[in-house]
């Protein structure tokens, strides 16, 4: 936990180390626990699968499978929900949020990692709060303020709202990462006559790239999946995929459940692609840890 970017040992080396060990006795409670875990996964897979199957089904009123298969719900969902626009908005929001939160967060984490100054603990607390407090709690006052300054409903409003948990998240991921970079490297560069700008661009920059990549991916996944803040601030032209999905389920009007499921499948697919990419760079625990508990003793 001290270096959040550290990869878990690969499964192969796990197996190699576990191999020569004597096998533990099989205990009844362990079997029960594994059984329950398997039960959880079976249900989980069936849950996702029933959405996917329905999205390809013609009609499905009871029984094991739909009466026939078709892909027309996808084209219908695509036009009905304006998915091309929604996907573009989602990508725009996510990318801008990632870039801005890295630009704002990384310099701050550099100072927090390297310097001691009065009020540092207070600042750290301030940066942890937006991650610990549930989004809906500060989202309602935040959306109120954004409505007051006429930013809510626009892309800018959605981006600003999504930055609130993202910037602290970058700070809390990057601070321990910078702490483990030896300050002597910077000192050596300065000894050799490098200016501050050169230290940042030629020494720290390359060293920080792995950490920034990990932080960016984590922020990307969280922003695409962030429902509450986007929901509270988005207008008709600035909804992201997850909010569009919610609106299609909950919004008024009669629409085929299958086209909702088609959209849900598109959402699931894009999240899984992001997840596969993310897991190449970070370990699973980092995706869920809310930052407040990582990087501390």
């Amino acid at each position, binding site marked *: 936990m001290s270096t959040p970017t550290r990869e878990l040992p690969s499964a192969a080396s796990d197996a190699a180390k576990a191999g020569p060990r004597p096998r533990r006795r099989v205990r009844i409670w362990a079997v029960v626990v594994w059984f329950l875990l398997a039960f959880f996964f079976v249900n989980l897979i069936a849950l996702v699968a029933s959405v996917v199957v329905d999205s390809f089904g013609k009609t499905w009123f009871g029984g094991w499978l739909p009466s026939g298969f078709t892909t027309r719900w996808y084209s219908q969902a695509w036009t009905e929900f304006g998915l091309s626009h929604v996907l573009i908005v989602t990508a725009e929001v996510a990318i801008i949020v990632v870039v801005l939160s890295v630009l704002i967060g990384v310099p701050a984490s550099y100072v927090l990692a390297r310097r001691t100054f009065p009020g540092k603990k207070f600042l750290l607390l301030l940066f942890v709060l937006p991650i610990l407090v549930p989004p809906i709690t500060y989202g309602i006052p935040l959306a109120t303020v954004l409505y007051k300054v006429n930013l809510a409903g626009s892309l800018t409003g959605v981006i600003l709202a999504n930055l609130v948990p993202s910037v602290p998240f970058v700070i809390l991921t990057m601070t321990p990462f910078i702490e483990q970079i030896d300050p002597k490297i910077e000192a050596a560069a300065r000894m050799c006559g490098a200016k501050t700008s050169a230290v940042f661009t030629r020494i720290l920059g390359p060293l920080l790239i792995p950490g920034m990549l990990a932080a960016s991916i984590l922020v990307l996944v969280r922003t695409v999946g962030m429902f509450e803040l986007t929901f*509270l601030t988005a207008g008709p032209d600035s909804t992201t995929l997850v909010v569009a999905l919610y609106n299609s389920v909950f919004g008024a009007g009669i629409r085929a459940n299958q086209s909702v499921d088609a959209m849900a499948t598109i959402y699931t697919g894009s999240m899984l692609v992001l997840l596969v990419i993310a897991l190449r760079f970070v370990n699973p625990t980092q995706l869920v840890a809310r930052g407040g508990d990582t990087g501390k003793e």
Partner: protein
Amino acid sequence: MSTATAPAVRPPSNQSSLRHRLAERGVDRTLWLLLPAVAFIVLLFMYPFLYGLGLSFQPSHGGGIFGNYAAFFSDPYLRNTIWKTLGLGLPAALFNVIASIPIAYLMRGKVRGKRLLTTLLVVPITLGTVLTAQGLIMYAGPTGWLNTVLLDLGIIDEPLTLIHNWIGVFLSLIITGFPFAFLLTLSYISGIDPALDKAAATLGAGPMQRFRTITMPLLAPGLVITFTLSFVLAFSVFPSAQLVGDPTGSTRVMSIAAYDAAFQQFDFPMGSTMAMIMAVVMLVVIGLVMLWRTTLYRGATGGKG
């Protein structure tokens, strides 16, 4: 968590070294790098929060500065949202933490497929509550696979009503909350030095005794953190309470009431009031849990909390 109390207990020696450094370097220009982040947090987090707090004291329907709070606590429909929220959040968080313990305990060492399992568990978290809700409607609905299987096996005679009620929201909180709690618990339990367990075994302690007297006391502080974070997640449940719950009745949680007030009735002061009450209720629960945590053992070897 330790950040909040640390300045008060900083030892004097540290203080003098701090002063020394400040005298030597001063609070130099590097600190300007903090400015964007601080300005950002102040503008987009603190200001809205304080604005909301101020707004909650300016009721749109009169009644003095505490009018909104009085209105909230005198209306049973609004007041009961607190109990409904706690009635969902506390059992769900408790279930998730307790279910995580045995599984994390089994997985604490090097186990084949650990990476695969943790990867699989991340999936429901990243999918989020909206998709989980839609999946539950399909899967656990009256004609869904779950009821079909149970009916065909003859376990039940009537389809179970698992959605659009308390159970539906509870299930969705478990699907997204359990993997979260498990991954945290696993990281805490992996931080406990296995040598302690082996030492206890050498001294003749049985598996149950080792678990009770070695692992649990070391794990407890981490479990408290896990519980707190799970509770925060479950407490702010919004989409699933709308979609698979009964948003006007048994699962009318505080977040739904606050959203309705602010964005359906456009009574922003009332919405802010409920957001503030939500924050207070959450802080009270977290405070109580943290207070209890101070009574637990905090050693160098485990917990990691």
